[in-house]
């Protein structure tokens, strides 16, 4: 972007220069890595436009970002946290709309040149301008992700986007909070031109000059005949709204108000005109901004951002940069890690397994992750060809001599993992880090086999690796800080949110989750039905109920994990009487992978409960506990265990713990995580509920010391 004229007048963020009748405005928040729109920036904008409006030498305006790879990342979310009422939030939205209204009505045409992320308020600004040029660079991502924070595009985005690209395409973007690559944004009509970065400034300037001469872009309605039938008339639009609403409800289970509010803002605006639409949009924005859901989503957003900067260990030396990753074990986890590492971290991956056929299958499975990206056009076929050349493997440790990091994902058994560690340590470079992907084996035990236990660590990935956003990093007793920071940094490069947790059975996620499936046995024994258990959990907001979870994990694996957890925490993770899930495993039911578990699976789809399960378990569904009690037992089990584990220092903080629960097993994000949820209920209430449960169902519900302490002191996990 070196071709943009140097600003003639210095101001903190918004600067401009005038040449040849065209003003070139540049936004660059010097103190921040990316541009965001705050009140201060708005004021500067207004001053700038006032000056340009009054300057007769200016015939048209171009606008750029001064950041290398970022246009405008959105509104300043910090400001949302200061909002105390819906009215205040509505005013914030209306202010933004007002500013962009001035941009839209500006007497001189404005062309924007977009390179880098152009999101939320940034894209709403671009929408208000008169001509949009975007670079075809992969970093140029355009979209309105507001609903992901529980709000809606409140600076006219719900009005201007549907008018530009039609209701269907606009709703598709807004309701899912999607961002698109520039090429697709161009196809949809979100930008007027797509150009290589080198000529962005020139082309934007040329467009401004043409507009100064009276030329206006002609935009045809996108979508042709179908576009007219659906978007071009009120009747068609009604169909569009109806199907959008249905989709939203399916996706959100009715837990998230923002997409529905955004839908209303769009619909209202198209029915009653721009001004009315803006008013309604601001109102709805105001209501959403102070909802509990939005607050929680914003908190998660901030927690995730903080975690991105957290080295995970105090006084950590900078991480070792991983250029080459060794992976031992090419099964489902190993290949998932391999494919994700290549796709996200662009790292050279060498896989090793005992048998070449398995290695070959592992590489193909890893490649499937790249195939998927190619199919969804996230990467070009040339990028694809380069990326698959990063995947290789063999049945020896050839190539591991240069691996800065090696992750093992072999069979979950201490002896096997130690054997692999001994073998590979002999060939690794002296600074190489060995990470064990285990869900149940203590890292310190594995590290006992090592010459250099200081470079042994746990990296617990979740399945499927490509989709699950969390990694637990587990330092052993002798792991040195740089090993931790290296594992944390690499997990992040793989696109994961990383929490560092204590080396204790189940680590964080599997430990606090343990009571959830464990309770299934008790509930079934008391006569609850499988459907009731699962549906209550889903209604609470879990992605799947505990019974389905068991099927997904695999019943054999679940039994193994449960044994470890019961062995370690027998006093409060108490199995139900009887054979339980083991009886199903014995009957050859392993869950989804064998086509049969609690449910029947056909052609990869769940086909309902297999009633013969009750017989195998020796239980009889006869109503069982009240639905509210089922739910309470499922949720408070998790809350209680999370509080206990936090008290033991398994997670560093409530923030890490809640993020782990949300990203690790899908604790409902809009509830903020089990610890935040306990805070919301109040420790006193949680303790008293648990005491009642303990009276009737035994010690497994005895409130943890950490909860009791908060109840006594009247304090919270988030101080």
């Amino acid at each position, binding site marked *: 972007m070196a071709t943009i004229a140097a600003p003639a007048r210095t101001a903190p963020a918004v600067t401009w220069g005038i040449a040849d009748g065209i003003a070139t405005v540049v936004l660059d928040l010097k103190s921040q890595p990316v541009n965001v729109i705050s009140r201060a920036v708005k004021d500067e904008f207004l001053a700038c436009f006032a000056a340009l409006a009054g300057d007769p030498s200016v015939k048209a305006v171009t606008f750029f970002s001064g950041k290398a790879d970022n246009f405008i990342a959105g509104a300043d979310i910090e400001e949302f946290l200061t909002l105390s009422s819906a009215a205040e939030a509505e005013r914030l939205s209306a202010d933004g709309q007002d500013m962009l209204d001035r941009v839209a009505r500006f007497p001189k045409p404005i062309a924007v040149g977009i390179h880098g992320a152009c999101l939320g308020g940034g894209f709403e600004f671009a929408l208000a301008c008169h001509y949009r040029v975007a670079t075809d660079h992969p970093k140029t991502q355009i979209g309105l992700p507001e609903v992901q924070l529980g709000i809606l595009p409140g600076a006219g985005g719900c009005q201007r986007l549907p008018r530009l690209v039609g209701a269907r395409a606009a709703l598709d973007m807004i309701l899912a909070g999607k961002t698109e690559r520039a090429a697709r944004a161009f196809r949809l009509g979100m930008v007027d031109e797509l150009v290589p970065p080198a000529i962005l400034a020139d082309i934007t300037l040329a467009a401004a000059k043409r507009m100064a001469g009276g030329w206006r872009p002609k935009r045809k309605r996108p979508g042709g005949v179908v576009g007219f039938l659906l978007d071009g008339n009120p009747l068609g639009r009604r169909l569009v709204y109806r199907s959008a609403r249905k989709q939203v409800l399916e996706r959100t289970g009715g837990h998230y108000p923002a997409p529905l509010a955004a839908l209303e803002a769009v619909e209202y605006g198209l029915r009653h005109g721009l001004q009315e639409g803006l008013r309604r949009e601001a109102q709805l924005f105001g209501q959403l901004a102070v909802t509990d859901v939005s607050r929680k989503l914003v908190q998660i957003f901030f927690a995730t951002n903080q975690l991105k900067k957290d080295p995970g260990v105090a006084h950590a030396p900078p991480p070792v940069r991983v250029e080459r990753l060794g992976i031992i074990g090419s099964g489902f986890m190993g290949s998932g890690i391999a494919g994700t590492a290549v796709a996200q971290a662009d790292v*050279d991956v060498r896989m090793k397994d005992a048998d*070449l056929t398995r290695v*070959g299958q592992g590489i193909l499975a890893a490649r499937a992750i790249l195939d998927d990206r190619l199919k969804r056009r996230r990467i070009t076929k040339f990028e694809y060809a380069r990326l698959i*050349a990063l995947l290789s493997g063999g049945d020896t440790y*050839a*190539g591991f001599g*240069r691996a800065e990091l090696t992750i093992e994902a072999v069979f979950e058994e201490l002896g096997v993992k130690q054997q692999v560690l001994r073998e590979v340590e002999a060939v690794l470079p002296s600074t190489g880090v060995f990470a064990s992907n285990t869900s149940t084996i203590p890292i310190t035990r594995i590290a006992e086999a090592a010459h250099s236990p200081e470079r042994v660590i746990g990296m617990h990935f979740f399945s499927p690796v490509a989709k699950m956003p969390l990694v637990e990093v587990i330092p052993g007793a002798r792991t040195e800080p740089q090993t931790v920071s290296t594992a944390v940094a690499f997990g992040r490069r793989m696109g994961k949110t990383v929490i560092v947790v204590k080396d204790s059975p189940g680590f964080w996620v599997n430990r606090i989750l343990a009571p959830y499936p464990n309770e299934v046995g008790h509930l079934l024994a008391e006569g609850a039905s499988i459907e009731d258990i699962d549906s209550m959990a889903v209604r609470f907001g879990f992605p799947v109920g505990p019974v389905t979870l068991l099927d997904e994990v695999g019943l054999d694996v679940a039994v193994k994990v449960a044994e470890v957890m019961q062995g370690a925490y027998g006093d409060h993770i108490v199995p139900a009487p009887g054979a339980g899930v083991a009886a199903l495993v014995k009957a050859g039911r392993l869950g989804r992978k064998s086509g049969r578990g609690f449910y029947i699976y056909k052609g990869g789809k769940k086909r309902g409960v297999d009633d013969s399960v009750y017989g195998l378990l020796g239980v009889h569904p006869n109503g069982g506990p009240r639905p509210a009690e089922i739910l309470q037992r499922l949720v408070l089990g998790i809350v209680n265990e999370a509080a206990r584990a936090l008290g033991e220092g398994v997670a560093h903080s409530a923030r890490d713990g809640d993020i782990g629960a949300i990203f690790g097993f899908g604790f409902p994000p809009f509830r903020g995580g089990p610890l935040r949820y306990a805070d919301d209920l109040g420790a006193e209430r949680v303790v008293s509920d648990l005491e009642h449960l303990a009276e009737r169902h035994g010690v497994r519900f005895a409130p943890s010391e950490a909860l009791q302490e908060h109840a006594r002191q009247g304090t919270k996990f988030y101080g």
Partner: protein
Amino acid sequence: MPGLNGRRVAVIAGVRTPFAKAGTVLKDARAVDLARYAARELLERTNLDGHEVDEVIFGQVVPSALVPNVGREVSLLPQFPKEIPAYSLNRACASANQAISAGQDQIALGNADVIIAGGAEALSDIPILASRRLADILVEASKAKSLGGRIKTFAKIRPRDLVPVAPAIAEPSTGESMGQSAEKMAKENHISRDAQDRWALRSHQLAAQGTADGRLTAEIVPWLPTRPGATTVRQDNGIRTDTSLEQMAKLKPVFDRRYGTVTAANSSPLTDGASAVLLMSEEKARALGYEPLTYIRSYAVAAVDPGWQLLQAPIFAVPTALERAGIQWKDLGLIELHEAFASQVLSNLQGFAAKGWDINEDIINVMGGSIAIGHPFGATGGRIVITLSNEMRRRDVQFGLISVCAQGGMGFAMVLERR
């Protein structure tokens, strides 16, 4: 001893893909895929950081029109920085040898320290050409200014124009095919059918032995499937463990059905494969901590009139290479002689014997040769350098010779030394 010309050049390591008969297990792979695979696995085996490499040189005899410079595609592997220059060359069946000697030159001259040289050929994927007339019409049509003009041009196409043209393995200067040349050499040098079959049988038996005891497979990097359902290829698939002289004797001669002696069994098959060899200056090898397999002591290339005995040029290249090395035939402890045809091998040996050299078959092609292992034109030279270097190390042989005949009446010879 130091290099006779400039710096001494070490052969550090080499690998190759399995060699597979064309149209079989490697038929989905393009030459560039095979070449990249071999080069990347060479890095894996040697733990070499791609940044150390100064140049990549690859040989290919029948290049693809889509990837004309296979060497550059190798050096654009993500394991290398993008700034490594690369080229591809063609010295027919000695192409990989030429790549290796070109690399040796550059290192000896001090222009480079580390070079990856090799070769690739995918005879499953030879370019099939359009007829010249069809090509002319297509070019003309692409220049037409209107749709009508284009259609008018296309209307000139006749059915016979649509018959594709496959490249033949024949000498452009004489029209004589490789096989016809081999046939001619058999006749002029009085090489019997039986002698040829025996040599071929020997090749298969020794290659089978080398495969079974792992000496030959040590240089192979297994080829992993590139799509579900494909198989892992661990070894060469042309080596026959079950053949016999009787079976070979049943085959009909291919190139001269009446009086001929050259058959499919005593010729090398059309083959897919690639090889890659890591070369370094002696000092660089020491600095990086590599123990060289062998050093390149000398090489020589010769050519004869293709109309004479097309594959007999080695008898001129070898004496020159020996002379440049400052050694004599009797100093050689191992010899790798490329086997295009058994009649060519026996003709070459006859030529050597005529110089008064003692032919000791026990040190020639001790793990068989191209007849059994296969002959991907561009890759064979690399295979021979690797096979010889590995075996020189195993037997601790001081001097080894490579002799390769090539299309166009050319011959290539190289002397390797162990210390």
